[in-house]
């Protein structure tokens, strides 16, 4: 007797479980385009939004409905190739993008207005007289961008955030995290960038930061392809015209234009 009842009980439970599961998975199947599921598995899953969609799930559904298969920047070329295979669409290369932090005001070249002992985040510090460093548009060094980077590509060295271009996938999460908007994401092939976003005039910048762009317009004159212009007291590179010749780099008196490795 004690053998029969447990066996009957569990066979019944197993039967019930099996039937319910198959029925439920059949009847209540969400008409999910299985291509979207396959694309979702290929995507890295960092939900970074570089593709312009709310996350990987949203992007996968969009691809199933015909969105461009190579918009996943962090995934790079191999993800783009897999996605286009799944969708059976012609594969186009993905322009790999890298982030750059346009400030080199480390602790050796600039100083602080006050000693900040509050909440150790750039966002909080930026509220107090727009940041502790004398340069109000410079990097605060609390690493908000480092914390948000899913790939650990950004580290804070000597009070300035630095991007490790090998690890960076150009997902762009750090751009939103920086209160001073110092970070810009552009094609990996573009090598020249002005590493300063100072809004102060020549005399003020000279006093504040040795690495700062003093808006002397020397680079504007030496640039053969008219790709660099000084706007609101600091030079900025127009990446479409810039050929990466590096003429402006030597000319710059404070060496704030860098060739990115």
């Amino acid at each position, binding site marked *: 007797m*004690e*053998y029969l009842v*447990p*066996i009957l*009980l*569990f*066979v019944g*439970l*197993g*039967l019930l*479980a*099996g*039937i319910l*599961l*198959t029925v439920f998975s*059949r009847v209540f199947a969400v008409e999910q385009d299985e291509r979207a599921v396959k694309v979702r598995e290929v995507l890295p899953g960092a939900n970074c939004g570089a593709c312009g969609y709310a996350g990987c799930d949203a992007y996968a559904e969009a691809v199933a409905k015909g969105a461009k298969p190579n918009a996943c920047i962090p995934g790079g070329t191999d993800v783009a190739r897999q996605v286009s295979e799944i969708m059976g669409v012609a594969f186009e290369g993905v322009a790999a993008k890298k982030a750059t932090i346009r400030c080199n005001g480390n602790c050796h070249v600039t100083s602080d207005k006050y000693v900040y002992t509050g909440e150790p985040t750039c966002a909080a510090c930026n509220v107090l007289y727009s940041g502790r460093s004398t340069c109000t548009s410079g990097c605060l060094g609390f690493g908000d961008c480092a914390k948000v980077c899913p790939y650990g590509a950004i580290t804070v060295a000597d009070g300035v955030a630095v991007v490790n271009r090998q690890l960076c996938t150009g997902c762009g999460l750090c751009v939103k995290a920086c209160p001073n908007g110092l970070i810009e994401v552009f094609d990996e092939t573009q090598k020249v960038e002005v590493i300063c976003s100072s809004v102060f005039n020549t005399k003020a910048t000279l006093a504040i930061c040795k690495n700062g762009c003093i808006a002397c317009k020397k680079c504007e004159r030496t640039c053969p392809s008219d790709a660099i212009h000084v706007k609101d007291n600091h030079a900025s590179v127009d990446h479409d015209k810039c050929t990466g010749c590096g003429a402006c780099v030597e000319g710059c008196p404070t060496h704030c234009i860098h060739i990115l490795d």
Partner: protein
Amino acid sequence: MRKSWDLIRPTFVLVIICLVISAALALTYNLAGVADLANAGYSAEQLAEFSASALPEADELQKVDVSVEDEDFHSVYKAANGAGMAIVVVTKGYNSDGMTVMYGFNPDGVMQGIYVIAQEETPGIGDKVTTDTEYLSRFAGQSADSFQVDTVAGATKTSTGLINGAKRAFELFEQLKGEVLG
């Protein structure tokens, strides 16, 4: 045939697994005789250890099955050499899980001793009382009407638990005296 087999295959596999496992368990459970082991209560050596402090004169305790339904009664034992009986009571101390305590009595109802079998009292505070032989020895020689044991400062809840257990044991002694000591 192919399509329908795919449909029922998962259920079939799950049923087979459930069947095999439940059969195996039922088999081992009954063969190994786990059932009668489960509610065998305390083993002989454990009883000897308990009675050493709860009912010293008793040589060997035998379990007596009585029909007492209330919640805090656990079990009752008769001393083989007629030295009295031991009642095991579950009493509430500081911890809500309660303590299991054995109280020993000689035939005319004078408490001989007490032994705390299991307790979950707060380590370092409550459980000190349950192992403090000096305090436990105060229970010996108490009788129902002249019961006088005070609580321990700092572990009032645990010691009150032991005292309430003792009072409950006295009531149970009166109730079961006839049936157990005969």
